[in-house]
C-alpha cells in the first residue's frame, strides 16, 4: 500500500457483497439513463434518415403543415411557375395495409413520366409505368416474401386492390426502418385507388441552380402563403425532432428517476457502513487523520463504486436501448436500428458518478465527524432520533413540490417553466416524503407487523423491532422503493382518470350504435389510414341503418390561430344530431349549434374556449393551407377528448380549408334495437369482404379499444419505472443484509435458545416484507396524492376531467410490495440461518 487512498479499495474488497449490491444499483440507474438517451437519439436519427431517404434528390418539400390532407388547388401550378424551380413533382400519399397480415405500408403515388426525386436505386425489376403496378422497398418486400412479378393485395381507402410488384428499390441511405414499409404506385392509379380525383398532397421540388435553395424557398413561401409549409428535407426532420421534444423530456425524466433511486441506495449503503466502521474511522482519527482525509476516504470508495457501476451500466444501457426500441415497435412506433449518441454517453456517465457522489456526501461528512474517542470505546455511537424539525421541513418541501406539479398540470402550455416546476416538484415531493419518512416508519411498521405478530409472535416481534430500531435506515430503504411505486401509481391514476372521463363521455354523448374505423386508428400518432367516402354510401344502403355519417380527423400543431396543438374534426351537421348527444356550455341546444356548423361556424372544446377566452357567438381564426378564415363559434363543447383541445366543423369546411377529402371513421345508428344485431352482422360482412383493414366497433368495443391503446402507452413508461423499482430492490437486500450483520449476536442467542433455522429465516422474511410493504404503502399514498393533484390541475383547464382511482394499479403495487419483500429477503435470510451459533455469540 503506497497511499492512504488505497484504503478505500481495501475496504470495498473487504465487503464484496455490499459493494456488489451498491454497484448494481448504480449500474441499473446508468443503464436506464443511457438506454433512454440512446433511444431518443435513435428516434431522432430514424426521422433524419427517413427524410433524407424519401426526399433523396429533392431540395425542397411543399406540404401541408401537418402532413395530412391535400394541398389547395392550383398549388402545383404556382410552384412550377416560381422562378428557380427546375422540377416540381406532385405526390399523393396514403397509409395502407396488406390485406393479409395487416402490415402497414406508406404508399406514395407519383407520375412515372417525371424523373424520380427520391434518388432510389432499383435492386431488381424496373420503375412503375402505369396501371396496378407497385414498386416496394427491398427490405420490407423481402420480409413479406414479395419478389418482382408477384401480386400483393392491399387494403386501400377504396377497399382491397391487387398490385403487381414490378420493382424492388433501395433508398440512397440504406437503413432499417423498424419494419416500416414504403412503396410507390402510379399517380393515375392512385387517383382512383385513393379516391383523390384532383390535387396533390405534397410537392417535391428540385431547384434549377445549386446554391439557390434558400432563395427558392423564400420565393415559394411568398407565392404560397403561410398556410403551406415549404421546407428542406433537413428542416422537416428538425420539425419532427422539435415535436418529439416533449416525449424526450418525459423519457429522460423517467430515466432520471432510476438514478434518483440509485442515490438513495448509495446514501443508505454508506450511512450504514460509516456507522459500522466507527471504531475504525475513530482509530484513523487518533492516528492523526484529518476530517478531510476521512471524508475523502469515503468519497473515494463511492467514486470507485460509481465508476465501476457507470462503466458496466453503459454496457447494459445499450442492451436496454435495444429492448426499448423493440418495445416501441411493438406499440406501433417503429424506429430504426440503434443510433449512438456521444452526448448521451457523457450525460449518462456524468449522471452516474454525480449521483453516487451526491448520495455519499452526507455519509462522508458524517464519517469525517467521527470522534476519535470512538476508537477507545467498544460500542457504537447511540443513534440520535431525528429532529422533529425534519418532519416539518419534509412536509413543507412536499407541499412545495405538489404546488409545482399542480402548476404543470394546469398550465396551458406544458413546456418551459411549468415543465421544470413540475419535474422539480416531483423530485421535491419524494425528497420531502423521505425527510419526513423516519417519523412515519414506527407507526407504519407497527400496523403492518400486526398480522405477522399474530401468526408468528416471536419472529414477527423480532422483525418489527429490527425495522423500527433504525427508523432512518428503514425510511431510506422504503423511500427508494416508494419512488418507483409512487410514479407507477400516479401514472396509473392519470390513465384511469383519463380513460374514465373519456368513457363516461362516450356513455353520455354517444347516440350511435357502431363506429367503423381503421384498425389501430390513433389520431395524433402520425399518418393514419383513411376511408374513401364511397364506403359511407354503401353503409347507408345497409338495411336497418337509420343514419350513418362520416367523421374526419386532423391532428394539427395549430388548432386555432395562436393556440397550440389539437384535433380538428369534421362532421356532418345534418346527421350528427342523431348520432351524438354532446353537451354545450351555456345551455345551447345541439340543433342550434349544428345549424351554426352548417352555416360555416365551428365548435370549440371547453379547454380551448377557456384558454382563448372565447364563447359562442365570438369569432375565431382558423389557420389552414388554404389560408386564414374567420369563423363564428357556434358552440362550446363540454369535452375532454384530446384534453378538450378540439375544434369541430362541417365536412365541407374541413375539406375546403384543410384538403381532408377522405373519412377517418363512420358513425352508424340502427333504426331500432331489434335490428341492431342484424345491422352489425351486415356491416361486419361488408367490411370483412372489401375492407379488411377496418373494424366495426360497438360503443363498448370502442371503449375497450381506447383502453388497450392507453394501456399500451402506459405500459411503455411502466417498463421504464420497473427499472427504478429494481434498483430499490437492491436497496432492500442491502439493508436486510446489514441488519442481519448487526444483529449477529442476537441471532446467535436465538439459535442457542433453540430457534430453528426456519424460524430465523422467517424472521428475516417478515422483516423484508415490512420494509417493502412500508415502501409500497408510502408509494401508494404519495402516488395517489400526486395523481389526484395532477388531475385537479388538469381540471382547471379541462373541467370535464374527473378523478378515477386506479384500482388495478393499486392492487398491482400491493402485490409488488409483497413479492419484492420476499424476493429481497431470500439471500439475507439464508445468511442469517446459516450462521455458526458459537461464532455468532462471540461477535462484537
Amino acid at each position, binding site marked *: 500500500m503506497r497511499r492512504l487512498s488505497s484504503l478505500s479499495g481495501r*475496504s470495498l474488497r473487504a465487503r464484496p457483497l455490499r459493494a456488489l449490491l451498491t454497484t448494481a444499483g448504480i449500474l441499473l440507474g446508468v443503464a436506464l439513463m443511457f438506454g433512454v438517451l440512446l433511444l431518443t437519439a435513435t428516434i431522432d436519427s430514424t426521422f433524419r434518415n427517413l427524410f433524407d431517404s424519401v426526399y433523396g434528390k429533392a431540395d425542397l418539400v411543399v406540404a401541408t403543415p401537418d402532413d395530412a390532407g391535400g394541398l389547395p388547388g392550383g398549388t402545383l401550378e404556382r410552384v412550377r411557375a416560381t422562378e428557380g424551380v427546375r422540377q416540381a413533382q406532385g405526390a399523393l400519399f396514403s397509409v395502407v395495409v396488406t390485406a393479409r397480415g395487416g402490415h402497414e405500408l406508406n404508399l406514395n403515388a407519383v407520375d412515372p413520366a417525371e424523373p424520380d426525386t427520391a434518388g432510389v436505386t432499383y435492386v431488381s425489376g424496373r420503375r412503375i409505368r402505369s396501371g396496378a403496378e407497385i414498386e416496394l422497398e427491398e427490405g420490407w418486400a423481402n420480409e413479406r416474401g414479395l419478389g418482382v412479378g408477384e401480386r400483393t393485395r392491399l387494403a386501400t381507402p377504396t377497399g382491397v386492390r391487387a398490385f403487381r410488384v414490378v420493382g424492388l428499390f433501395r433508398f440512397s441511405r440504406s437503413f432499417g426502418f423498424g419494419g416500416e414499409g414504403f412503396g410507390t404506385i402510379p399517380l393515375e392509379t392512385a387517383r382512383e385507388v385513393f379516391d383523390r380525383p384532383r390535387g396533390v398532397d405534397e410537392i417535391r421540388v428540385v431547384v434549377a441552380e445549386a446554391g439557390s435553395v434558400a432563395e427558392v424557398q423564400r420565393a415559394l413561401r411568398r407565392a404560397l402563403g403561410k398556410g403551406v409549409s415549404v421546407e428542406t428535407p433537413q428542416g422537416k426532420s428538425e420539425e419532427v425532432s422539435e415535436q418529439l421534444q416533449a416525449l424526450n423530456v418525459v423519457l429522460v425524466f423517467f430515466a432520471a428517476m432510476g438514478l434518483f433511486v440509485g442515490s438513495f441506495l448509495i446514501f443508505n449503503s454508506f450511512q450504514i457502513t460509516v456507522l459500522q466502521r466507527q471504531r475504525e474511522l475513530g*482509530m484513523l482519527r487518533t492516528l492523526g487523520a484529518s476530517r478531510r482525509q476521512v471524508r475523502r476516504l469515503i468519497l473515494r470508495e463511492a467514486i470507485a463504486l460509481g465508476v465501476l457501476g457507470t462503466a458496466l451500466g453503459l454496457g447494459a444501457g445499450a442492451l436496454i436501448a435495444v429492448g426499448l426500441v423493440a418495445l416501441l415497435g411493438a406499440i406501433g412506433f417503429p424506429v430504426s436500428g440503434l443510433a449512438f449518441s456521444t452526448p448521451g454517453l457523457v450525460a449518462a456517465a456524468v449522471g452516474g458518478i454525480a449521483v453516487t457522489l451526491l448520495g455519499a456526501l452526507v455519509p462522508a461528512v458524517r464519517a469525517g465527524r467521527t470522534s476519535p474517542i470512538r476508537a*477507545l470505546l467498544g460500542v457504537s455511537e447511540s443513534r440520535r432520533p431525528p429532529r422533529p424539525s425534519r418532519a416539518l421541513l419534509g412536509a413543507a418541501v412536499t407541499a412545495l413540490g405538489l404546488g409545482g406539479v399542480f402548476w404543470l398540470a394546469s398550465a396551458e402550455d406544458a413546456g418551459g417553466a411549468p415543465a421544470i416546476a413540475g419535474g422539480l416538484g416531483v423530485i421535491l415531493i419524494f425528497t420531502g416524503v423521505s425527510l419526513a419518512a423516519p417519523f412515519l416508519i414506527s407507526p407504519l411498521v407497527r400496523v403492518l407487523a400486526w398480522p405477522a405478530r399474530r401468526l408468528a409472535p416471536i419472529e414477527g416481534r423480532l422483525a418489527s423491532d429490527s425495522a423500527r430500531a433504525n427508523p432512518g435506515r428503514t425510511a431510506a430503504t422504503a423511500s427508494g422503493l416508494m419512488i418507483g411505486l409512487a410514479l407507477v401509481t400516479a401514472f396509473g391514476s392519470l390513465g384511469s382518470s383519463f380513460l374514465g372521463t373519456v368513457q363516461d363521455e362516450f356513455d353520455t354523448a354517444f347516440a350511435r350504435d357502431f363506429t367503423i374505423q381503421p384498425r389501430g386508428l390513433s389520431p395524433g400518432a402520425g399518418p393514419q389510414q383513411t376511408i374513401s367516402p364511397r364506403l359511407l354510401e354503401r353503409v347507408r344502403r345497409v338495411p336497418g341503418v337509420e343514419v350513418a355519417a362520416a367523421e374526419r380527423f386532423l391532428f394539427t400543431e395549430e388548432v386555432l390561430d395562436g393556440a397550440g396543438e389539437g384535433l380538428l374534426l369534421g362532421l356532418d351537421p345534418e346527421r350528427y344530431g342523431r348520432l351524438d348527444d354532446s353537451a354545450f356550455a351555456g345551455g345551447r341546444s345541439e340543433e342550434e349549434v349544428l345549424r351554426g356548423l352548417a352555416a360555416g361556424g365551428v365548435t370549440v372544446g371547453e379547454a380551448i374556449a377557456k384558454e382563448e377566452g372565447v364563447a359562442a357567438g365570438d369569432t375565431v381564426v382558423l389557420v389552414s393551407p388554404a389560408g386564414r378564415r374567420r369563423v363564428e363559434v357556434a358552440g362550446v363543447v363540454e369535452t375532454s377528448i384530446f384534453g378538450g383541445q378540439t375544434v369541430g366543423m362541417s365536412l365541407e369546411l374541413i375539406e375546403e380549408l384543410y384538403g381532408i377529402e377522405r373519412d377517418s371513421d363512420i358513425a352508424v345508428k340502427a333504426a331500432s334495437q331489434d335490428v341492431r344485431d342484424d345491422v352489425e352482422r351486415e356491416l361486419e360482412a361488408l367490411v370483412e369482404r372489401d375492407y379488411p383493414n377496418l373494424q366495426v366497433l360497438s360503443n363498448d368495443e370502442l371503449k375497450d379499444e381506447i383502453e388497450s391503446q392507453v394501456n399500451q402507452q402506459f405500459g411503455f413508461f411502466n417498463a421504464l419505472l420497473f427499472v427504478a423499482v429494481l434498483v430499490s430492490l437492491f436497496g432492500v437486500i442491502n439493508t436486510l443484509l446489514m441488519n442481519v450483520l448487526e444483529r449477529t449476536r442476537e441471532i446467535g442467542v436465538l439459535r442457542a435458545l433453540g430457534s430453528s433455522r426456519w424460524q430465523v429465516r422467517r424472521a428475516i422474511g417478515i422483516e423484508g416484507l415490512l420494509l417493502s410493504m412500508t415502501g409500497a404503502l408510502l408509494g401508494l399514498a404519495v402516488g395517489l396524492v400526486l395523481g389526484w393533484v395532477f388531475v385537479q390541475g388538469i381540471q382547471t383547464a379541462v373541467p370535464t376531467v374527473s378523478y378515477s382511482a386506479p384500482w388495478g394499479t393499486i392492487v398491482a403495487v400491493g402485490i409488488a410490495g409483497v413479492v419484492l419483500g420476499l424476493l429481497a429477503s431470500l439471500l439475507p435470510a439464508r445468511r442469517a440461518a446459516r450462521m455458526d451459533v458459537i461464532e455468532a455469540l462471540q461477535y462484537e
Partner: protein
Amino acid sequence: MSAVAARELRKIYLQGETEVHALRGVDMTVEAGEFVAIMGPSGSGKSTLLHLVGALDTPTAGELEIAGVPLSGLGEAELTEIRRDRIGFVFQFFNLLPTLTAAENVGLPALIAGERPSGRARELLGVVGLADRADHLPSQLSGGEQQRISIARALLREPELVLADEPTGNLDSASGEIVLDLLRRLADDGQTVVMVTHDDGAAARADRIVRLHDGLVAS
C-alpha cells in the same frame, strides 16, 4: 520540557441533564523518558484524563501542555495535528485494520501524514519481534501479536508520547507480559509512555503510578 504538564485540569460534561465533573482539578507532570501508569477505579476520571492527554478532547478549565505545546484554545484541526505528530496510541482492542497486513498497519500513520512508506515499518516489526509476520493479516495473528503490531504502529512517527489504554486488558497473562516487557524496554530507551490500567501487576512495571479518585489525583 515535560512530555505532559497538566495544571488544575477540569472536565465537566453533560450526561443527559446532569453535569458530570469527571476531573476536578488534576495536576500531573510526566517528564520526557518517563513510564507512568495511571490507575483508578471506574468513574475515577482516568479515561477522561487519557482523552485529554491524547488530544482527543479539550479541558473545560485548567492548562495542559503536550511536549511543550499548550492545548487550550486549539481547534479540531490543530488537535488532529498534535495527535498525528506527537502522540502514538495503543488501544485495548488493538484497532488494526483487518484488510491491511501487519506491515501495512504499522505504516499507516506515515500515509496519513502524507509521507512515503519507508522501510521503517518492517524495522519496527523487528523491534517488536514480529519481523516474520510482516505480511500476515490481523485475523491470522494472536491477540498478543496484534497488540505488539499496534505498539509498532504507535512508534512509527517517533512521537514524543506513547499513550496506552489498557494495553493488556484483552490479553492472556503470558501475552500481557510480553507487551509490558516491550513497553518497559521502550521507556528504558528513552520513550515517554503513559499507560492507563487497572491491573496492579502491569502498573508495577512503570516508573511511577498516578492514582485517580473521583476526579482528583489521590497520590
